[in-house]
């Protein structure tokens, strides 16, 4: 195209035609792209930076408490900072009771919350008519956006009397089971109540993860089950549940992550006592997050550092649970595709 020299109508010797220079083809990115990609590359590490900073700062500040109490910081239960007459502070910090308490109420929350969530997810996926399903899915999402202090206030005012009544009933008929017995008949503000509140709070996350998994059940397998004469329950048992099992486990672990770190709702309903208590109906228990809130206001400098160390333990616990849960869920979701 550029070469017009052979054209008989134009004599190239008479008119000097400016021949456009060949455009250079290059794969070199423009400066704007270099800047763009570099910015994104750097900024994408902000999450790593934040996580590292959280772990780093809490561990750094709490180091003194770890060093002073040793392994007892995890295994011992008493937590006290006493200022003696000479103005010297005697500290003993152990969060054993709080760790046990956190595990106890989280377990209760899972035992109650997960079956309800799985049933809800099954109902939404395989039973509910389309219109009802849409409404209920919205309600589940809405539930997730309720402030945790609403759950706390509601648990304290509305649920607490009911849970005390249920606890008495359970004690009356099942009190012979070791962990359902109580040393004294005090049922208020028990781990049982805190567990119920948490179980309601984890329903949205467990339900939505389970629903997503059940929704991916391959249609051909469902239809194959029906074609072989399965009832709806037969299909769920033979196809949906085995298919969704790992996703449900992952969802439950995400729920556990929530339950471990919940603060305000638990603080509102639980009687926090620094003694290991396995009697779930008995009115005292613990939870790392709410212990931090309870002690922080009046804590001395040293005690604050110990509380930050407790926060570090909580951070590591939830991070581990969440990482495992996310891996399980993403594997389950991928294998479903």
């Amino acid at each position, binding site marked *: 195209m550029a070469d017009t020299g052979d054209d008989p109508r134009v004599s190239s010797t008479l008119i000097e035609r400016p021949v456009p220079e060949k455009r250079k083809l290059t794969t070199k990115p*423009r400066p704007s792209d270099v800047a763009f*990609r570099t910015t994104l590359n750097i900024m994408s590490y902000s999450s*790593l930076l934040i996580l590292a900073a959280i772990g780093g700062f809490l561990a750094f500040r709490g180091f003194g408490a770890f060093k002073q109490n040793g392994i007892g910081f995890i295994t011992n239960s008493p937590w006290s900072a006493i200022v003696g007459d000479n103005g010297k502070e005697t500290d003993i910090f152990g969060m054993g009771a709080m760790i046990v308490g956190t595990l106890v109420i989280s377990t209760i929350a899972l035992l109650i919350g997960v079956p309800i969530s799985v*049933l809800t997810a099954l109902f939404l996926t395989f039973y509910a008519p389309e219109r009802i399903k849409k409404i209920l899915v919205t309600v589940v999402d809405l539930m997730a*956006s309720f402030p945790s202090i609403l759950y706390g*206030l509601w648990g304290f005012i509305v649920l607490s009397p009911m849970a005390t009544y249920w606890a008495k009933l359970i004690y009356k008929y099942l009190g012979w089971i070791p962990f359902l017995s109580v040393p004294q008949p005090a049922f208020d503000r028990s781990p049982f109540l805190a567990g119920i509140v948490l179980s309601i709070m984890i329903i949205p996350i467990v339900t939505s993860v389970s629903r997503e998994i059940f929704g991916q059940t391959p249609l051909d397998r469902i239809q194959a089950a029906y074609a072989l004469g399965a009832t709806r329950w037969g299909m769920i048992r033979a196809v949906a549940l085995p298919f969704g099992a790992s996703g449900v486990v992952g969802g439950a672990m995400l729920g556990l992550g929530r339950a471990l*770190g919940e*603060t305000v709702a638990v603080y509102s309903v639980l009687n926090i006592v620094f003694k290991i208590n396995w009697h779930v109906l008995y009115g005292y228990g613990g939870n790392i997050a709410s212990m931090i809130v309870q002690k922080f206001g009046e804590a001395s400098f040293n005690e604050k550092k110990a509380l930050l160390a407790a926060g570090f333990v909580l951070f590591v616990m939830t991070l581990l649970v969440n990482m495992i849960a996310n891996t399980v869920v993403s594997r389950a979701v991928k294998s479903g595709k």
Partner: protein
Amino acid sequence: MSTMTHHETVYPKRPWKATKADLIPVFALLVLAAVVDYAVVAVTPMKGKLAYALLFFVFGAGFQMVLKWKQLGRRAAIDSLAGSVAITGAALAFIPVISLLETAIVKGMKGLYPGFFIHDMSVANYQSPLNQGGVIQAIVGTLYLIALATLISLPLSLLTALYLTEIKGKASGFIQFLVQAMSGIPSVVAGIFIYSALLLTTSLRGSTIMAALALAILMIPTVTRTAQEVLLLVPADLREAGLALGATQWKTVATIVVPAARNGLITAVILGVARIAGETAPLLFTLGVSNKINFNPFFGGQSALPYYVWSGLADGTELGIDRAWSGILVLLMIVLALFVVARVFGTRKVKTK
């Protein structure tokens, strides 16, 4: 055969679908279950709502099982029981929602009066009569916190999401993993982290900016993940068209991809805001205290609705708790409004025209 000009829509027949005649015994048995339930509670020592609910389930599910067994046999009876259990499970999940909303509205209305929205707490305390003082400082504080936290977290979230969808670099899997891990950080940890990093050993005191930083940590994963989902929905054709026309990647992203996903990105921000609007725990360490409107983000405390509710609950008196309920009702209205707006924007996530 109908002629070409005369079409009739033919719907597929569903012979397995329950007819009205099939449903009559089902409802009749439910009514019967309710009657028997009532009678049993009346004559036996079992009392209370719990007994009604439990027995209604036993009788309701039991009668349906017997009906199915008579009609279709043992397997149908088991299927019917499984259906009853699933419905009951779903009901158990939704009863608390109704109770939560009902309690918040009924108890919250008590302390609401027009002045509640225009007065602050400098003229009253938690023991004052309910027609004194209000939450204007808390509403302004919450909105202020939301604005600052969004300002801090949005750039980080959007850039991370763009990295995951547009660059898809070597570290994508790792970054994705970290963002997911971040979404599990307990809110109390975000609060004490800011405290330990910025407040513990310095002369700084709790302020709006400190609390906004803590909230931003909680907001980033939500916004990033939603933004990522939305950006993935933008058709690859649009990106390729942009590049084919000679635009650089930066131009393509800035003028095509992001505008195409605009509504979805707004949804992402709103979901992030809804995530943090009701957070209480981080505020306890970072916010300071104020009973008046305070526009200075660096100095002096701030108020916020969750903190107002918390103080009322901590006050413990009847009036304090009444105030807490009113505060939570206002907070709930803000969260619900955000939720509805997110739904409206979310219905059409990607604008392809």
